[in-house]
């Protein structure tokens, strides 16, 4: 089963853009065909490398948004969701210039620590996912993987964004939540809540984690992903709330959803 983290030296491979999907006005999912892709675990990422004609090149890291796919016919697919930064160097290319049929160089899958494996030990534990902005991407891979694997572990996602327009995967999250198989999602809006909702705006605080998360007694596995400041603040609140530091796994992003 091609679920294991890859063994063998990582090298750069070339994928081809098979499809593009706008997620928001400023974020896009890139679907890549990657011949020879060894499979991945939910939570892993890839490094992407762009090279200009004069040889100048630059790299960024992006979380894999798609669930690992098992026994799929045809070339394996890797999906990345990229948030465009106005002053970015790579994200404008990936979200505006890249087109179907274009090549994209990537290296991975990377990372064996910030992963959730439905077959791994402790995989029936409740899971708390806390996302800041585009930090939701690797957590979405975990949510998708749970559904694809028929997982029973109850999942709670706390997803913090500036405003409703910044939500990634909004329709899909709503649909999965309605399916009633153990996913609950709480949205936190730091600047503007949905009109008419009456929901207060503000950052995640201890009360949010207590009401929308799991109590420490449930021994949840916790995954926190987002910008460094967000991750530090949330991890701190979780520890103060009684969660063991060993249960909390964090991944820090740069602002574009990819690490520079």
């Amino acid at each position, binding site marked *: 089963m091609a679920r294991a983290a890859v063994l063998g030296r990582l090298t*750069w491979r*070339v994928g081809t853009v098979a499809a593009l999907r706008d997620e928001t006005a400023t974020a896009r999912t890139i679907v890549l065909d990657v011949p020879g892709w060894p499979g991945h675990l939910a939570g892993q990422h890839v490094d992407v*490398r*762009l*090279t*200009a*004609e*004069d*040889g*100048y*090149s*630059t790299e960024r890291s992006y979380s894999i948004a798609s669930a690992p796919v098992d026994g799929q016919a045809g070339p394996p697919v890797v999906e990345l969701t990229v948030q465009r930064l106005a002053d970015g*160097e790579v994200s404008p*290319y990936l979200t505006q*210039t*890249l087109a179907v049929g*274009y*090549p*994209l*160089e990537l290296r991975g899958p990377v990372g064996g620590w910030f992963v959730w494996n439905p077959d791994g030990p402790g995989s029936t534990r409740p899971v708390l996912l806390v996302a800041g902005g585009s930090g939701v991407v690797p957590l979405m891979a975990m949510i998708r993987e749970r559904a694809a694997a028929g997982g029973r572990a109850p999942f709670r996602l706390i997803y913090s964004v500036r405003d409703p327009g910044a939500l990634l995967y909004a329709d899909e999250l709503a649909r999965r939540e309605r399916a009633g198989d153990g996913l609950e999602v709480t949205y936190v809006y730091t600047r503007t809540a949905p009109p008419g909702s009456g929901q207060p705006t503000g950052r995640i605080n201890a009360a949010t984690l207590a009401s929308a998360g799991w109590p420490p007694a449930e021994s949840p596995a916790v995954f926190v992903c987002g910008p460094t400041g967000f991750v530090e603040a949330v991890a701190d609140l979780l520890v103060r709330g009684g969660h063991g530091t060993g249960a909390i796994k964090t991944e820090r992003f740069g602002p574009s959803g990819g690490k520079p």
Partner: protein
Amino acid sequence: MGIVSPGFSGRRRESSEKLPPGQYLVTDFPVLSAGPTPRVDTGRWELRITTETGQVHRWDWAAFQALPAEEPTVDIHCVTKWSKLGTHWRGVSLDTLLADVETSAGFATAKSYGGYTTNLPLADLVDGQAWVAFDFGGEPLEAEHGGPARLLVPHLYFWKSAKWLQGIDLSDHDTPGFWESLGYHNYGDPWREQRYWGD
């Protein structure tokens, strides 16, 4: 080299015959750092030059600011390939700082608050080649760019221009610094493209 990404050009770059090989021009001023930015209050700032015999010359901020300063305009070249031409600084020349320092040492190690080090021949610090700079572009040097004061040695790759300068140790021995001990060239002349060991 990787495959070319169609339509990708990256941040605006130009090449110019004024640039050392392999460099490109940038319009911003990239911040490169190997650790957290030291926050050094000028009230506790001190610069020390220590000779090979152990003699210490020190300046606090007031004494340092009282020294005659120059306003060099120089080109800077980072080993990560970006260059900026015509950058304006204000700083005290190492010739001024070393004027009363008795030494026959051949080598210097620049040391930063925060632990960074870099080494270079003493001959490359004198004769108008280096400054301890405290203003950039007409403004006090920001912490992220090495303020309150940094070494400025523009004829070598910019990793030699140690930020958050705390001291310079003079020695008869050449001791590779932070990057020089991990693959980066011991001397680092951009015009001979001396980026890595053996270049």
